[in-house]
């Protein structure tokens, strides 16, 4: 034998002690970040999906559930949802009509399209079992949104949809690790612009609503690069089907069109055509599914003064729109056209 191996016992003591030390350290770190005042000093935990907006929403939702609140409804969508859906207004309008409480969480994520919404809906349905998931969408969401692929491929989403992976497991299980993810992304930022964007979502309210005040001048020229298509995409219909499949988990699904400012919608070339493509596409999937799509563009719910700019409502517009949503929900539940399951406990 030219090369042989010979291990004398004891061997590996250093390694054993290191493992023990590591476990102790991880335990200690986990304990420390669970102390409320400590956690308050840290950035909202991250999930390694490249979207800070998503992380903040997950954190806000988590915080409410941990405080023992029961979330009836989660409203998922892009920044049009983030800035345009005020859960308080929905709650007020709903209880005015039905007399019962209805707690809603805004889960609007910057840039998220239908694919990202579907992945998010799957994750949230599994973790929080809401009675109703509302998808706020529109003809501009037919393409894949900027964070969609990152969200779909993020470990925590894959892990919770049954694709076991170590990173997803540790992200789901360890708050210390999620805190690390947030802090390290913040440290890695190399310019003031990105830093501002990163911190922007910190002012998101506990119910996930990020109100915008006043108005911002906008340029209709930008609409020439409209993110819309004259043909429905398979990724879009596949995503809608994926969302509908969540009904099995005892969750009702509702789609609501997030409108554009009326003057903008009228001015944008071909907007009507794009919208018809979107409408036909989504209706063909919803047929016989028992779920509805509420169209809002033609209803002129939000007056011109309720817009921050062409496609994001300001705080007043959000109140108007959300009140409308709350009333419609209340009516629909009252007259039985929308059936909400009793729902299980919200706590995971």
């Amino acid at each position: 034998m030219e090369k042989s191996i010979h291990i004398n016992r004891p061997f590996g003591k250093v390694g054993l002690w290191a493992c023990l030390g590591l476990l102790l350290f991880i335990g200690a770190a986990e304990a420390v970040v669970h102390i409320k005042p400590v956690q308050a000093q840290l950035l909202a935990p991250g999930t390694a999906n490249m979207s800070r907006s998503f992380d903040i929403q997950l954190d806000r939702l988590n915080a409410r559930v941990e405080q023992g609140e029961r979330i009836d409804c989660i409203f998922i969508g892009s920044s049009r949802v983030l800035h345009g859906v005020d859960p308080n207004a929905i709650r007020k309008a709903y209880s005015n009509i039905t007399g019962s409480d209805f707690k809603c969480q805004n889960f609007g994520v910057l840039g998220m399209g239908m694919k990202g919404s579907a992945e998010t809906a799957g994750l949230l349905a599994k973790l929080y079992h809401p009675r109703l998931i509302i998808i706020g969408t529109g003809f501009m969401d037919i393409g894949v949104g900027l964070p969609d692929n990152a969200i779909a491929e993020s470990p925590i989403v894959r892990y919770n949809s049954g694709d076991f992976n170590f990173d997803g497991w540790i992200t789901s299980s360890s708050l210390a690790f999620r805190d690390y993810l947030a802090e390290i992304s913040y440290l890695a930022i190399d310019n003031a612009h990105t830093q501002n964007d990163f911190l922007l979502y910190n002012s998101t309210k506990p119910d996930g609503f990020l109100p915008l005040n006043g108005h911002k001048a906008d340029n209709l020229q930008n609409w020439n690069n409209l993110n819309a298509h004259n043909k429905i995409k398979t990724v879009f219909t596949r995503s809608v089907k994926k969302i509908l499949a969540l009904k099995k988990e005892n969750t009702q699904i509702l789609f609501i069109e997030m409108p554009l400012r009326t003057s903008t919608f009228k001015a944008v070339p071909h907007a009507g055509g794009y919208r018809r493509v979107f409408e036909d596409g989504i209706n063909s999937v919803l047929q016989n599914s028992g779920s509805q799509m509420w169209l809002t563009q033609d209803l002129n719910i939000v007056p011109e003064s309720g817009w921050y700019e062409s496609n994001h409502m300001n705080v007043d517009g959000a109140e108007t729109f959300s009140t409308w949503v709350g009333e419609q929900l209340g009516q629909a539940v009252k007259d039985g056209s929308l059936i909400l399951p009793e729902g299980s406990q919200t706590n995971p």
Partner: protein
Amino acid sequence: MSITSLAFAGFVLAVLMLYYVLPGKSQKFLLLAASYIFYISWDWRFAITLALVTVFNFFFSRSLRQLRSQETAPSAGGRSKKGKRLLWLGILINLAALLFFKQSGFFLHGFQALLSRLGFPNQIGILEILLPVGMSFYILQAISFLVDTYQNQIPATVNFMDLALYLAYFPKLLSGPIERAGSFLPKLSERVVVDNQRITESITRILIGLVRKIVIADVLAARIPANFFSSPSTFSSIELIFWWIAYIISLYNDFAGYTSIARGVSGLFGIELSPNFDNPFFSTSITELWNHWHMSLSQWLRNYVYMPLSRYMLRFNQSGRYLPNIIVPALVTMVLSGLWHGESWNFVLWGALMGIWIAAERIRTVYRPAGENLANLPPWHPRRIFSWAGFLIVIFLIAIPFKFDIANSIVFWRSLVTNWFPPPSLLGWRLPLIAFIPAIFIDWIQFGKHDELIFIRWKPIVQSVLLALCVLLIFLAFHAEPPQQFIYQGF
């Protein structure tokens, strides 16, 4: 498979288990098979190139050996005209093979331009040739094998399997260390017992390597601004200095980390590989730096280029102070080194500047006061300060064309002097500065005791803490994902 991947770890474990249950005679065969499987995992065509190079050099060395044994050993080492000519032929064929793959892109594009000018359609797709990874390294070793055969440095028992394994051995296949045939081949047949000590040393090497590669090099490389090398003019002087230092530390830890892992893995198989780095940044001169940076390449160049050339010239004029004797070997060696790193003009410039600087250092040594030893002078002595200043000149002047093309090198040098404003944005420096901490720590501790494995001589409890810290840092650095700009578009 990448050497820092879990797949590689699994591969090594599987091969190790087989290795130690197989009888000694089959061990080399197993290593050879494993090496080819490893290489095929990159690209099967690479393995064919390697096999062809191996077969050629085996038969060539046999002829070389036969020719040598026919000649009686004459004086002065028995170098004969005929043998020498054959040796040169062998070296040239190896170099031609390397050049073919290395330069083919360069030549083919010229060829394509000619074809399209003559009106032929673009057919370059079928001619595109890939440089097999590791070829730059194994060709140098094949040359080493021929020269050492010619100089009777190779045991007569060395067979085809030995040569094949010498060239293909997977821990060193991709990026060295470049082993000398005469010293590596006997190690393959040595009896070695891999005991607690060796295992500990090997695992420590692997860990140090992983920390260097993942915690330091990768984190730094990911932080260097994307346009740093392509448009240095957009950076201020301070930023240029900072990112260039970050790049050098990243490059060093990347390569030193790789070598450390390679040596650790090889150590588990009971085969020692040569060191490649010896805390180079503590050198007091550039000549010294090259003795501590990519040492196996420096030694190869020294053994097979610098020394023969230097001796050849000294035979005509024995004076060590005769300037051509000083300048020409250094210049030729460093220009060749530049060309080995890359076949473009910036590498030629880099090599030429480096060669001139090394010659200048040598001239200073040759003409210094009798018996003076720089190392004995206090650090604040003008001569010591001069050598430190030289260090800065090399890093910020001579080393630049190593990474920047010639036009951008000039921009870099000019911006370094003129672009003092605007003041740098320090935001992006935070993570690199954190990564500098382990970088400085490891080298400082190793250099302080002149012991690469000083960590395993510490108290067991300290070792445990350090080990836990390493594992934690490697895990965390793997997850140091930066946020991507495109997500943060704001409004």
